[in-house]
């Protein structure tokens, strides 16, 4: 399958996963397209579409927590910033993704 076809397939699959979680694709189509392309390449390399904005470790159980869409493993964090770390997904109420900051979980917990 070529890159464009796989991007479309991932988009279709991810939509079904994130919708019941209260998320949607970011309205920033350029970023979404770039991220999906990176995920296709990560999938070609590792066999799994990992998050392009988080680093893989040597521990499988850690890496499984950054398989896209990784929202269920980072729920408290992403719900607080209304976006996933990459900004591939935003909560359904978001209309302007530019307003959403990339704040690490540690800072949110500290308030």
């Amino acid at each position, binding site marked *: 399958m070529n890159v464009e076809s796989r991007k479309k397939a991932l988009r279709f699959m991810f939509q079904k996963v994130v919708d019941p979680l209260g998320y949607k694709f970011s309205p920033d189509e350029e970023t979404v397209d770039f991220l999906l392309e990176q995920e296709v390449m990560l999938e070609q390399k590792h066999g799994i579409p990992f998050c392009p904005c988080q*680093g893989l470790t040597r521990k499988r159980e850690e890496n499984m927590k950054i398989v896209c869409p990784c929202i269920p493993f980072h729920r408290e964090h992403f719900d607080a910033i209304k976006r996933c770390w990459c900004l591939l997904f935003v909560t359904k109420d978001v209309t302007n993704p530019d307003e959403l900051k990339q704040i690490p979980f540690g800072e949110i917990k500290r308030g």
Partner: protein
Amino acid sequence: MKVFMYTLSTCPWCRKTKKFFSERNIPFDYVDYDLAAENEQDKIMEEMKRSGGTMAFPFVRIDDEIIVGYNPEKYSELIEQKRGRQK
């Protein structure tokens, strides 16, 4: 002022972070974690986990201050602070 960052070649926010500093003519060094050798990855992982506990990129160090994530407001604030101290 010394700027250093750990980034991922696949991450658009890492690219934006590099662009932020380049556009302001602020020199920086960086290592793309995903393209680094395994022993170097281990060292980076250890440093990142010690500083914040996650493997979220970009990871920016301005002198001894660490900022995780693409945060232009914080970068600017820190740069101003550092420049103020240098005067």
